[in-house]
């Protein structure tokens, strides 16, 4: 099992941050549904993480370093990025927010967030059992 601060725990926290940021982005899209020429944004995180994982043959994240003598490994978990979709138009006024799609993404993101919280909570619970024996 990974201790808090381990690679898998860090990945979970990174995913939780990404889900929290995506919630803000989707809320912003929904708030601007009636604004002419507004273009929707989204968060890329899963793709970046998959790219980082597949870059190595053993499918593992690079090492974390904390002393100057350590070999460089780069950041273990990628930072989530906000990207704007300028290529599409959904409404007659140049706005490309599809409210139905945003609502679905909102629900999906909420479930994803709950999953990460549950998983982090589970890791901490396991750790507590390991420490206290109950």
């Amino acid at each position, binding site marked *: 099992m990974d201790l808090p601060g381990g690679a898998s725990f860090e990945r979970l926290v990174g995913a*939780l941050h990404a*889900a*929290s*940021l995506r*919630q*803000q*982005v*989707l*809320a*912003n899209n*929904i*708030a*601007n*549904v*009636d*604004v002419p020429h*507004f273009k929707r*944004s989204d968060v890329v995180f899963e793709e970046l993480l998959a790219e980082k994982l597949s870059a190595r043959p053993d499918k593992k994240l690079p090492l974390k370093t904390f002393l100057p003598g350590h070999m460089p490994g780069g950041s273990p978990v990628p*930072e989530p*990025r*906000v990207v*704007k979709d300028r290529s599409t138009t959904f409404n007659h006024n140049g706005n490309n927010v599809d*409210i139905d799609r*945003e*609502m679905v993404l*909102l*629900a999906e*993101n*909420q479930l994803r*967030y*709950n999953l990460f*919280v*549950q998983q*982090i*909570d589970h890791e*901490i619970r396991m750790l507590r059992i390991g420490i206290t024996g109950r």
Partner: protein
Amino acid sequence: MKLGGFDISASGLTAQRLRMDVIASNIANAETTRASFENGRPVPYRRKMTVMEPIRADFRDVLKGKLATKGVRVTQIREDPSPFKQVYLPTHPDADENGMVHMPNVDLVKEMVDLISATRSYEANVTALNASKAMFMKSLEIGRQ
């Protein structure tokens, strides 16, 4: 501490409510022939429209690759320049020599459609706000005994 998405959804609620207020004003004044006076002649009510715009984030956030807009706001309430309706009502106190009365350029059907659109957008923002709240409550469960 910054709670993700709360202020964004709140700005959407504020903007949509203001839009509904403006629509309510248009509907209430659909028959108002004396909104103001020009050279002693009554001028009817002009239909009002809201102009919305995203709230832009500061440069530092954009540079960091964070969200470039943080919600929505109404920047101005503009008047509709379209011509007034002319109705033949010779007994009306504001009728001219030919018995014609200038009526507001408010189209009730258009207002009702706009009202429904504003209501639905308001509800969408409420849903987003509830989702943010549920997520925040869920994160409080981390590490609970």
